[in-house]
């Protein structure tokens, strides 16, 4: 009997502690969890919205901040730098950046550095520069860090990398929503959407889901054909070219004949 009461007490002690750790949880909604790349695809807006579920009252102190990070599939990137040699600009040094996402967007509910501390950013790899992994460049290359920066700069110019501060709307510390617009030059793959809840720069809860970005219809068919049946694909391309050439010639002659 005594043992049982002890157990019950223990359980009563443990359960609140367990919920304490995930006291605030994300319940997420996406306007879409897949993006279909069709022939006339010209970018896509994804509405990411959700609510914060909690059993206890809203804690006092620092207000709740929300960070949403959407990331495309990562791949190694070879970065080359031009240098002037013998009067002309040629590719000289190159650095392999081990892993850089094809797309990366961060939206925050306040200025980035107010929403999260540097150590937490380092741990969760949220900011763009942290999301890129670049392990040791060649020792005799100067300013190796600039190569990783170049990746960020070039991709930001293509609207592939972005940081959008103050674009997550948070209501009553309970509801949040943001819109991530994805540009037209997307690549396929599983995109991850990570949501971080922070208080006073510390992450209190995280949530992750995937958005499936895929070519569909004709785009899918042509892409698969070019990979699986390259000879058929090549011959098809040539046949189209010849037919178009002949068609234009015949049409033009008919036009002039009349």
């Amino acid at each position, binding site marked *: 009997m005594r043992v049982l009461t002890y157990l019950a007490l223990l359980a009563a002690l443990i359960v609140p502690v367990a919920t304490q750790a995930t006291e605030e949880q994300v319940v997420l909604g996406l306007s879409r969890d897949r993006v279909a*790349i*069709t*022939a*006339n*695809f*010209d*970018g896509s807006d994804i509405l990411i919205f959700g609510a914060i579920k909690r059993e206890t009252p809203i804690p006092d102190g620092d207000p709740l901040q929300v960070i949403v990070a959407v990331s495309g599939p990562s*791949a*190694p*990137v*070879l*970065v*080359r*730098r*031009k*240098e*002037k040699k013998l*009067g*002309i*600009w*040629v*590719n000289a040094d190159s650095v392999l950046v081990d892993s850089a996402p094809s797309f990366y967007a961060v939206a925050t509910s306040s200025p980035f550095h107010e929403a999260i501390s540097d150590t937490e950013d380092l741990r969760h790899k949220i900011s763009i520069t942290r999301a890129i992994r670049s392990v040791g460049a060649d020792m005799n290359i100067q300013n190796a860090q*600039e*190569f990783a920066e*170049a*990746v960020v700069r*070039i*991709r930001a110019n293509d609207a592939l990398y972005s940081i959008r501060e103050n674009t997550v709307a948070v209501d009553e510390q309970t509801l949040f929503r943001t819109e991530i617009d994805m540009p*037209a*030059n*997307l*690549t*396929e793959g599983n995109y991850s959407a990570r949501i971080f809840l922070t208080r006073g720069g510390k992450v209190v809860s995280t949530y992750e889901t995937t958005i499936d970005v895929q*070519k569909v219809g*004709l*785009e*899918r068919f*042509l*892409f698969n054909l*070019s*990979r699986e049946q*390259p*000879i058929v*694909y*090549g*011959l*098809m*391309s*040539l046949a*189209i*070219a*010849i037919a*178009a*050439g*002949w*068609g*234009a*010639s015949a049409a*033009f*002659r008919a036009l002039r004949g009349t």
Partner: protein
Amino acid sequence: MQIYLPIAEVSVNAFLLLGLGGMVGILSGMFGVGGGFLMTPLLFFIGIPPAVAVATEANQIVASSFSGVLAHFRRRTVDLKMGTILLTGGLIGAALGVVLFNYLKSLGQVDLLVKLCYVVFLGVIGGLMFIESLNAIRKSRKPGGAPPKRRQRGWIHAMPLKMRFRTSGLYISVIPPMVVGLLVGVLSAIMGVGGGFIMVPAMIYLLGMPTKVVVGTSLFQIIFVTAFTTMLHATTNYTVDVVLAVLLLVGGVIGAQIGTVIGGKMKAEQLRILLAGLVLAVCGKLALDLLLMPSELYSLGAAGGH
């Protein structure tokens, strides 16, 4: 209207591509060049990945050349015999060129070599053509002067294996056209173009063919060389984007027809001086790119690629 290209994986404006195709098509029909040396840099400029641009361009040239050559067939300005000999040399040369290209790729710096090739060849050919056609125009303006005969009897006529090319009005050895085809084949594989801008002047100045026949014959052999290149790219690099090709060639084939009509109405010297100007302009642009400091020193490439 935006169109997403399945292989290039970028979205571009369809009308922009139609317009580019049309413009380059007109030039192709007028001068008998495939237009690749013009179109490929333009595609880079609008953001198509270089590998896709080069491969797709080859496919598009097949269409515009085919359209153009049909028009020339009707006007009987294609020397089939000469074309076949040039083509034989060309295919052998293209195969050699691919081997050479892959060897240079393993050494790195292949991009630089391609650009230098462009600058040197475009510069030399454009310059020579420009001077020659200026002289020709000046001579033809002289009153009472008989039209100059350009046909010299030199070492080319002393070679064995002579053959009669009736359409061109030539009786020469098959060795020079074979060698011309071979060299152009090597260069076109390295530079990723049909090679018309090298072939046309070579036929005029080295072989002494009449300009009117040169254009059709050049188009005839370009069809086969670029078809060969397209297949090579489609099967090894998977970089032919058929949607991009269709958009370019719809504009291109129409442009080629218009160009052929314009070309037929112009004097040979005028045609040559225009082509020379165009070649020199592209050469100047490429040379500037090499000499001036680029605004972005860094470039991104897929790992493992060249």
